[in-house]
């Protein structure tokens, strides 16, 4: 087969197809979105199913259903998406996975497009399953295929951990032959019905397998151990993308230090023991939290060996790794640097597009809230979070998907008035329906603004599940009185009228929902272009 230029995300998608994928499920989230984007692009040639779902929990459970039927399933998400899917994720480790189930989680160290930099390897450890961590594009492809095999060998979900720099970089990938999909093979109810009587048996079984997972990790072709017989002073343990930075930096020196590459979890004990016996001190270089380093050190550290890494400040404990940080940790001299520019370089933060409907919504909202001393706007995850930045400065909170509504309700409970929530249409479908029902039940004194731009804009314009009339009907169906469901069109010419409607609903002491509805300008443009090109 011909080699291809692929994003790390796309290499995973292609690896899954070639591994005999039957169903793939996801919710958009940077940096994982391009996995499903790729699968959707080649859907017609595929013979598999690939769908954007309402949220990551639903996506995970749909994948689980495919696995129950004996077929191979892929579920992909960004790191915080796994928080949403944590319930099925943790429990599925106790089922007897049938068709291979691969959970791809893309972490975002440095928070390029995220609200935290949690490290998903802890989740794999928490669920007591195996995890693979590719360093490059070819490994992203190969390990995805391998992950399906491991999953079917041990009847467990297998995690594939990516990070932004791999997900969103391109390189050459050499694909291999495609394998056929699995035949139907139904799961046994006693292995899938997690009543205590079954769950206890299944959990014991999972615990019994732990030593075998360690052995499997030790035998994994993806780990590598290179010992330098001449110099035992320092050895480096590296995993994932950090391994590339280490190779980049040590490539300059004549003699490479001993290097253990870890690509498979639980940790390969045998290689680590050999490595520790060989070297006097160790530098651990890993992207994310000090996951490997923390396990090596335990509570008291290792007698007579020094372990350097993020925990002792050799590398920064926050933010994304970069080659020059590895250089510094290895105590190599910094390269000569160009003089910094003599002028102040004004920052260029992301911003709402020209003509964005959210901008008109925030202008109207700001105009109204000026007349209240204590107004708070609880917002959510999406393009409209950029309303927090100047010139709008219209947002007080952004925590997680759906929290705008529940926090506005809690804020109202605490006495905040006006308590306003701002959420997008897709985020509302993802995690907003349940908190709105909670607010309906007590007729909470709050105003919820649903900014309906008819797309999942921030991640590149994926389809939304609740927009327009369907969104309206859902709000009605949850029990919001129709007289307090108002629809506005966020346009500059409607500023005064929209402000008037917002004022009326704030002055009404009870629950109101304002649907601010206008299509994303990027989508309008995209559609016009498609029509022009026929």
């Amino acid at each position, binding site marked *: 087969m011909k080699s291809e230029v692929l994003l790390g995300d796309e290499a995973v998608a292609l690896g899954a197809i070639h591994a005999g994928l039957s169903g793939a499920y996801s919710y958009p989230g940077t940096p994982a979105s391009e996995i499903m984007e790729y699968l959707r692009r080649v859907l017609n040639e595929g013979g598999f199913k690939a769908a954007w779902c309402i949220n990551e929990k639903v996506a995970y459970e749909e994948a689980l259903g495919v696995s129950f039927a004996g077929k191979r399933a892929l579920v992909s998400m960004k790191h915080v998406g796994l928080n949403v899917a944590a319930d099925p994720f943790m429990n599925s480790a106790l089922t007897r996975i049938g068709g291979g189930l691969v959970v791809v989680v893309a972490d975002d160290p440095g928070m*390029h497009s995220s609200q935290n930099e949690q490290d998903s390897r802890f989740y794999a450890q928490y669920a007591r399953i195996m995890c693979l961590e590719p360093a490059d594009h070819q490994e992203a492809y190969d390990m995805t295929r391998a992950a399906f095999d491991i999953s079917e060998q041990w009847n467990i979900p297998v995690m594939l951990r990516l990070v932004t720099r791999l997900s969103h*970089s391109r390189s050459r990938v050499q694909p291999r032959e495609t394998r056929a999909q699995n035949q139907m093979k139904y799961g046994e109810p006693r292995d899938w019905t997690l009543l205590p009587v079954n769950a206890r048996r299944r959990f014991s079984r999972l615990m019994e397998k732990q030593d075998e997972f360690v052995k499997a990790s030790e035998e994994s072709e993806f780990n590598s151990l290179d010992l330098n017989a001449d110099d035992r002073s320092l050895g480096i343990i590296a995993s994932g993308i950090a391994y590339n930075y280490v190779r980049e930096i040590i490539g300059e020196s004549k003699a490479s230090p001993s290097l253990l590459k870890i690509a498979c979890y639980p940790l390969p004990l045998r290689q680590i023991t050999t490595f520790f016996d060989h070297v006097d001190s160790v530098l651990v270089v890993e992207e994310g939290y000090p996951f490997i380093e923390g396990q090596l050190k335990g509570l008291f550290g290792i007698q007579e060996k020094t372990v350097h890494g993020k925990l002792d400040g050799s590398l920064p404990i926050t933010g994304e790794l970069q*080659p*020059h940080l590895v250089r510094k940790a290895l105590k190599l001299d910094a390269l000569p*640097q160009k003089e910094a520019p003599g002028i102040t370089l004004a*920052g260029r933060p*992301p911003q709402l597009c020209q003509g964005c409907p959210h901008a008109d919504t925030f202008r109207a909202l700001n105009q109204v809230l000026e007349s209240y001393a204590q107004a708070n706007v609880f917002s959510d995850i999406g393009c409209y979070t950029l309303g927090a930045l100047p010139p709008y400065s219209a947002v007080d909170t952004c925590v997680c998907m759906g929290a705008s509504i529940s926090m506005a309700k809690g804020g109202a409970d605490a006495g905040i008035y006006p308590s306003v929530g701002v959420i997008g249409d897709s985020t509302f479908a993802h995690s907003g329906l349940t908190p709105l029902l909670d607010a309906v039940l007590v007729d909470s004194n709050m105003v919820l603004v649903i900014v309906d731009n008819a797309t999942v804009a921030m991640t590149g314009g994926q389809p939304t599940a609740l927009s327009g009339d369907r969104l309206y009907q859902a709000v009605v169906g949850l029990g919001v009185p129709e007289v307090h469901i108002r629809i506005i069109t966020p346009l500059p010419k409607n500023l005064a009228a929209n402000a008037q409607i917002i004022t009326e609903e704030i002055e009404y002491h009870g629950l109101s929902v304002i649907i601010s509805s206008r299509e994303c300008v990027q989508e309008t443009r995209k559609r016009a272009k498609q029509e022009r090109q026929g």
Partner: protein
Amino acid sequence: MKQDIILAGVGGQGILSIAYVIDNAALKAGLNFKQAEVHGMAQRGGAVQSHLRLSDEPVFSELIPRSSADMILSVEPLEALRYTDYLAPEGIVVTSRTPFVNIPDYPELDEVLEELRSLGNAVIIDSEALAKEAGSVRAQNMVMLGAASDSLFLSQDLLLEFIRELFDPKGDKIVETNLLAFELGRKAAASE
């Protein structure tokens, strides 16, 4: 033989199109390459950059180490200055002189250009005028790719092949515009 290039610009200026052409030309030329880019929130009108690494030996790091880029190729002058800490002492800067002003505190253009000139190896191109001459102000990215082309170790023919391939779905006229933009950029850089 290696070439490390920082591509810079503002979200929407088409630096990923430049990357597409170079990536595919590199693949066809049998070179190893890695190219890290920015998606998601940062793309919305913010500063964007891409690390592009070409080599006939294995490329390890997705990111170019600081102080070792051979070139900064920027579609916007202020953005070219943002990454000078990545530039090697002998590295060159190929940049547009057309500012993209979407922030209130954009510095004086003359000061920006002065800083660029003080870097030593800067090729500064009027990408807006040349793109207009080629037929579309949107073709500034291809003007800049043309301006950098003589310094890349990829053949003109390969680059032109993938410009054609990239714009082919948009019709012959747009293909011609971008090929001309590339040529005008190349000539402008040669006469600098």
